[in-house]
């Protein structure tokens, strides 16, 4: 059940190192992420989960003083290649953040933002896209009558699903989620988890979570990070019933630190 290095790999990371200034935040990460599966990243605070996630769509480049080396290949294309256009790359990789961050526009305009950026201005087309993506994000029924309403008037959980819809509207293949439910209450969290479960039919999902139970519930694979290193990665079942490394065992049973 471990990841294989064959064609059944969507993202292949090799010997990835990342430094913030002189501080090394990721050390020698090698990992294979399976397509159409949910991979959860867990580990104590500051271990580099978010940093790792953000190397996958090169969002780290927005920070000054970051140095990255190693290789990240998606569908066998090296994304850190000089030839690669970051903007194009990010279009193909959706990202969902910890705090839901809809634009202070209408629900419709939020979802239509990505397509418009890409030059789609035909109202009909846009309506189509908005409807399908909102349906995909399991929020259509709740908002279909208020598409013109401000997205900020939605509840936290709805906002987060709207953000997912917005990401889906540019038609990515990969979704990166950084603690997407940590600011939500249990009920909204359950809805998001359900949604993730459905989305993995079509998308490759990488999710950071502080909540071990959440990792257990939603993911197919779990990777345990510690101090910038990848300690262990395996199928979630194995990780939660019989992990190999003592550190992993200690962390998930709460005997850490």
């Amino acid at each position: 059940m471990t990841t294989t290095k064959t064609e059944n790999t969507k993202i292949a990371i090799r010997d990835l190192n990342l430094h913030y200034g002189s501080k090394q935040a990721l050390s020698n990460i090698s990992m294979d992420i399976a397509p159409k599966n949910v991979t959860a990243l867990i580990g104590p605070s500051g271990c580099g989960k978010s940093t790792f996630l953000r190397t996958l769509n090169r969002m780290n480049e927005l920070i000054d003083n970051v140095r990255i080396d190693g290789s990240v290949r998606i569908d066998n294309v090296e994304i850190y290649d000089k030839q690669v256009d970051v903007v194009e790359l990010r279009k193909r990789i959706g990202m969902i953040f910890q705090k839901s961050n809809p634009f202070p526009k209408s629900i419709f305009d939020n979802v239509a933002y990505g397509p418009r950026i890409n030059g789609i201005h035909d109202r009909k087309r846009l309506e189509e896209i908005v409807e399908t993506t909102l349906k995909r994000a399991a929020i259509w029924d709740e908002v279909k009558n208020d598409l013109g309403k401000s997205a900020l008037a939605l509840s936290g959980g709805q906002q987060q699903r709207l953000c997912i819809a917005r990401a889906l509207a540019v038609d990515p293949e990969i979704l990166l989620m950084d603690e997407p439910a940590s600011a939500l209450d249990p009920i909204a969290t359950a809805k998001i988890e359900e949604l993730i479960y459905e989305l993995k039919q079509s998308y490759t999902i990488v999710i950071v979570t502080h909540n071990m139970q959440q990792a257990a519930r939603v993911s197919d694979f779990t990777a345990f990070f510690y101090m910038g290193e990848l300690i262990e990665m395996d199928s979630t079942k194995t990780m939660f019933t019989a992990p190999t490394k003592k550190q992993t065992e200690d962390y998930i049973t709460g005997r850490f630190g």
Partner: protein
Amino acid sequence: MERQFQLELESLKTSLIKMGSLVEDSFRLAVAAFLEHDRRAGLEVIISDERIDSLELEIDNAIIDLLALRQPVAKDLRFIIGSQKLNNDLERIGDHCVNLAQSALTLLDSPGNSTTGGLAATAVEDIRRMAEIVERMLRDALDSFIRLDPELAEEVLENEQPVDDLNRKTVKLVVESLKAEELGVETGMELARLSRNLERIADLSTNIAEEVVFLTQARVIKHQGV
């Protein structure tokens, strides 16, 4: 995730129902092997035990995964714990069915296989009656699980005593026939063993019923009557 979890619980239940029907089949075949001298049936029981065992393992693993990954509480937890016990009981019933089948086969094989006359016939008759009751108990217990019907489960519990009595009576009868030398020694031994195994299966069916009561009503009745 709830929906997903629901599905997983459903699928656990389905596996258990499958397990239950395998065991029921085993039971019926074992009884047939004895009552209808059906050697084929007896052999089938022994073979199918392997499937029961592997299904038990499978279910057990599924349960551990559910406990590890879903962290169930309340109703869900009770259902899972109940399922685990049910699984275990079914496997044990399967084992007893094998015992029944073995006894039946031994009887078929033993040269002095005569269970037709006098006391032996009575014993066989008793065993037939026991088998009927136990079959119903097992079926009802499984049904009560499938339908999560605590009332049906309570009905199962009422049958324990009659089976117990029948068993005692049968064993006594066998001993007496042996003493009277109306029965071959092996025949007698196997008849007694059959009876005892049936009684155990009745016991285990009772356990299942008790678990159904537990998982539907959060009420432990096991060992309570003791």
